[in-house]
């Protein structure tokens, strides 16, 4: 049953995600955190952070890991098949049989219209993450980390993987002398 749920969840993600793998991130979150509750926000955030820091396509890393975490190797395979196969088969069919379709204006119109919708979903997730930062960080720490991230990633174009890696290492080696791990 879990395999079928995994298949359905990632089938919907694959078939609704226009604009490549990254646009499927909010869809994955909807299925995995909100709909099926396989992970809480915290675990999903960690998964996303690591997926972002490793090379390769993001959608298959998310599908494969979440499938594995929820249903073992078989779960991984059903999530991967659901993510990849339907759209690959569709592309092969269209590419060989309905070549003229790529010139159809309504088809590109459809794709274009989904882009801002995904933008909204990503913006909502952004706000969620900022709100959740209060769980474990103080206000000034959140602002400092946000500012530093904007500066490094958006203005200096440092690859986010380096920043995430540096933060992880810092969290790991920082000595624990003050007792405020669960601080508000």
């Amino acid at each position, binding site marked *: 049953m879990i395999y079928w749920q995994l298949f359905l969840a990632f089938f919907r993600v694959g078939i609704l995600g226009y604009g490549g793998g990254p646009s499927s991130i909010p869809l994955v979150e909807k299925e995995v955190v909100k709909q099926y509750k396989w992970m809480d926000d915290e675990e999903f955030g960690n998964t996303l952070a*690591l997926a972002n820091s490793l090379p390769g*396509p993001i959608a298959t890393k998310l599908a494969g890991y979440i499938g594995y975490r929820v249903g073992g190797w078989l779960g991984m395979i059903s999530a991967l098949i659901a993510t990849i196969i339907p759209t690959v088969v569709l592309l092969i069919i269209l590419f060989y049989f309905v070549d003229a379709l790529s010139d159809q204006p309504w088809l590109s119109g459809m794709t274009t219209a989904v882009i801002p919708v995904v933008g909204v979903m990503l913006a909502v997730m952004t706000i969620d993450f900022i709100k959740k930062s209060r769980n474990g960080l103080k206000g000034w720490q959140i602002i400092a980390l946000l500012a530093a991230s904007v500066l490094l990633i958006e203005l200096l174009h440092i690859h986010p993987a380096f*920043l995430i890696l540096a933060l992880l290492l810092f969290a790991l080696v920082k000595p624990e002398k003050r007792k405020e*791990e669960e601080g508000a």
Partner: protein
Amino acid sequence: MIYWQIFLAFFIPGVVGYGGGPATIPLIENEVVDRYGWMTTADYSQMLALANALPGPIATKLAGVIGFQQAGVLGAVIGLFATVAPSLILMIGLLSLLAKFKDSPRVKRMTAYIRPTIAVLLAGMAVSFFHTSYQSAGWLHTIILVVASYLLMERWKVHPAFVILGALVYGAVFLV
């Protein structure tokens, strides 16, 4: 031989491409056009245009169709395996390790520290999606779609699947 070439052609972009599938597009082009000469740049752009118009992750669509073109179903399977497996194995290994220590305060702190950075990454993606939309659909359609989809999903809690289907219809009718 051809299977090994297909494996390499997608393995290399998969392990050096940071930033998800779309970042690997030029790397794949480098392999399939420049190195192996399986297609011309024009063929590649046409395939890319069609792949972009369809849903789903982009790197796997390209690996599947190019692998199929070169060596049939087995070629497609090998292209897909080379695209997906290396980064996924790494991911499962690292996260399983992390899950083992998930109750340690240090791992909790790791989670807390990276959250604002993830927020910035998501915000950056949101901005680039809005920018793309503004460039291809204009500000009026962008604002209509943004406001409508925000209200539907966040205020009236409509499932995103229906909102995306609605947007597809809107695009087919108004964005031609």
